[in-house]
């Protein structure tokens, strides 16, 4: 199949999996982009996701980079529409029905039940990500320190990401 069509199909199928946040779709993104289609490796996917944390706007914008890698600007454009479109349309529809839905018993139960599952999916995404990013002593140390700093302070994460780049260059640059 044509690469652009494949991209559209893959990212449209990921769109509605982002329950609770973009990270919830990460395990499936890894399966499809790395294992099934071999567009890039897991560390490469992690690198692009991490760079995406420095970009303005939603934190999964790296999907556009994947599209660009695979099929240039048509790929990037198709991925943008396929990944963000379906969830946006669903939000628009539910938002308009919300005044009628919110009092319903089943909506409250549905929200309550999906809350822990969405946190579980986010955590699963984090662990998938960590498998490609935390590969040795130095990277585990960087990750742990950033984790601890963010839980204790309200420092802008972008600074920590940039600090990670400097540590990475110092530690691995001479390989």
């Amino acid at each position, binding site marked *: 199949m044509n690469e652009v069509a494949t991209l559209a199909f893959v990212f449209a199928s990921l769109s509605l999996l982002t329950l609770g946040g973009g990270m919830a779709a990460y395990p499936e993104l890894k399966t499809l982009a790395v294992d099934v289609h071999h567009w890039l490796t897991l560390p490469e996917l992690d*690198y692009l996701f991490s760079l995406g944390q420095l*970009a303005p706007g939603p934190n999964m914008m790296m999907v556009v980079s994947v599209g660009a890698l695979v099929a240039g600007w048509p790929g990037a454009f198709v991925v943008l529409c396929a990944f963000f479109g379906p969830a946006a349309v669903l939000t628009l529809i539910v938002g308009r029905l919300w005044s009628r839905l919110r009092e319903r018993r089943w909506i409250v139960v549905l929200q309550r039940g999906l809350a822990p599952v969405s946190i579980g999916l986010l955590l699963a995404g984090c662990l998938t990500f960590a498998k490609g990013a935390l590969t040795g002593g130095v990277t585990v140390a960087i990750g742990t320190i950033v984790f601890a700093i963010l839980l204790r302070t309200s420092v802008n994460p972008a600074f920590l990401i940039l600090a*990670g780049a400097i540590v990475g260059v110092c530690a691995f640059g001479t390989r």
Partner: protein
Amino acid sequence: MNDKTFVELLGISQSLPGLKAVNLAVLIGDSLRGTFGAIAALAGVCLPGALLMYVVGLVYQVERERPLLEAGLEGVAAAAAGLVLAMTLQLGRQALSGAADLIFVVLTVICVNRLNVPVPYALAAIGALAVGWYAWVDAASTRVRR
């Protein structure tokens, strides 16, 4: 738009699939200017980052073999791993309560990471289990109140 509407829209955007910031933009755009407002808000929140990440993708394709770049990115990804874990932990603290919630979280992680169950199946199966559980809790509490 007043505070109450904003908080309500924030609540909807969190409980639906999609990224929170994007959903919120769509809902605000829709409530201010209808469908056209929603499309404009969606474009506004996505396009700057999308353009930047498009360029990042192109540059990365050409430069991915450069050892110094890879060294820096390895550090960046390690830092990002700490970041996403911290964000998830903070979300979990707000959203979870009780042992049942923890069990559903652990079940989801085991299914996806250990058993390699595809996310849609894990979501459907454990989602049904968790929603069923809270429906039962809800029904039981109604019975007690009567």
